């Protein structure tokens, strides 16, 4: 049996949890979390960690050179760098409303990249 320490990043509290894992890599016990969501988070974090990607893309016909975006759902942690590369060359034009889809289905993950700001001009 081994122990793995995982910091829960589900909320700003940042609980430091400990997972007891058996030889079949099955989680036997979790300690150190403070809520149900946190318990679920560290379990997922152990099995397959995911993150929301935030980034910027280039603009056209705008006074602002860059425009902020994020994925509408988390990606696998291992996909983050590749996803950041997939945003190179994406250009947006005003008008854009916050929440609007900028790049649908990034890398065929079913996850969309959305605007996180308004772009009026």
């Amino acid at each position, binding site marked *: 049996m081994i122990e793995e320490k995982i*910091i*829960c*990043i589900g*909320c*700003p*509290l*940042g609980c*430091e949890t400990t997972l007891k894992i058996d030889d079949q890599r099955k989680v036997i016990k979790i300690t150190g979390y403070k809520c149900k969501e946190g318990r679920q988070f560290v379990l997922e974090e152990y099995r397959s960690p995911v*993150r*929301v*990607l*935030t*980034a*910027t893309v*280039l603009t056209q016909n705008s006074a*602002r*050179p*860059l425009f*902020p975006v*994020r994925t509408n759902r988390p990606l696998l*942690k291992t996909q*983050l*760098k590749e996803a*950041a590369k997939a945003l190179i060359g994406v250009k947006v034009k005003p008008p854009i409303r*916050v929440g609007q889809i900028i790049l649908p289905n990034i890398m065929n993950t079913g996850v969309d990249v959305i605007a*996180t*700001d*308004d772009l009026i001009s």
Partner: protein
Amino acid sequence: MKFSEVDVAVIGSGPAGMAAAIKAKEEGAEHVLILERQEQLGGLLHQCVHNGFGLLYFGQDLTGPEYACRFVEKVRDLGIEVLLETMVTQISGDRKLTAINSHEGPIHLQPKSIVLAMGCRERSRGQLSIPGTRPAGIFTAGTAQRLVNVEGFIPGKKVVILGSGDIGMIMARRLSLEGVEVKGVIEILPYVGGLIRNEAQCLHDFDIPLLLEHTVTQIHGEQRVEAVTIAKVDKNKRPVDGTEQNIECDTLLLSVGLIPENELSRLAGVDLDPLAGGPVVDERRETNIPGIFAGGNVVHVHDFVDNVSWEAEIAGTWAARLSQKGDFEKKEKITLKPGRNIRSIVPQTISGQNDVTFYIRVKEMEEKVRLKVGDIYHRAFRVVKPSEMIKVDLLQKELNLLKGNSSELVVECEKGE
């Protein structure tokens, strides 16, 4: 709107200023005016393109610009007046306010109340006294953040970050994703300066080394940074001879703390608290000058944007009430006193007549302690850390438990659970 009719003037439109203005309007102040020096509302939120904003306030994981958008929409819907690209240059103790912009020229206002919401700024190299040359390539983390996220410049190819503040760690991740080699984060203290979750998702996720109890002792390079020397430090934070090592890099980012912006507060004659860094306030977030309130990072630097907005709402609420009913009656005040292992307490004084939201920062990391506010409140903590501010809400009726006419209330960490 005639400028002579302003009820509540709010200086700054970041997460504090917009929250204060909205609350003041909702509380019934008719003419609420925001003065913002940039060309858009939102303050620093625009360059904070990462997520983690609003988890407490909205129960949603938003980015900085999204958090700003929510407030901007409300500012518009409520008909709050806004002056952009307008710099406040003077506030006097009798609530006269002077601002300037290129459309109106100088603007003279006499608002009934003023909310200070100018936020904070970063400590820079000059405040650290790092020996060495003065080449290009040394930036504060926030400046690098603006360059990368707003203006579209990458500050360098090989980066060392001094200080493990949140902005530094967030920039470590951001630069890694942009293909920059982040060689390490150097922290003089034995623990990380920012939030533990940022250590996890910004440093661990990208395999960026964190060197605790180390500091930069020399900067090398003539035109451009070429390397830094780092060394281990002893218990007194002094570099230990023989532990020096050179790290080749072209950029050094500084993430070594934030300081409230106090210039306007000083001009107005507002008393400042050297411990919290900003104005001394009471539970209404009113300063020693009647009718001048303050909220958010201008009072003391918060860990979470959500608390910045919540605190500014307190200031906005009372600023509106004062604008409608006139100045508050002067009463005896109770002074909060930092006791064992307490760095700072906001508010620094209370009237005892209203509910209070306290924000408390400890001096040192300590395990198994009991936080006490006089003998009217206590809470057990497994661990307290300087990087994690403690919020304590006390109801007015709990303050009634204060014995007799005590003029002092000690906040302290007691050892043991």
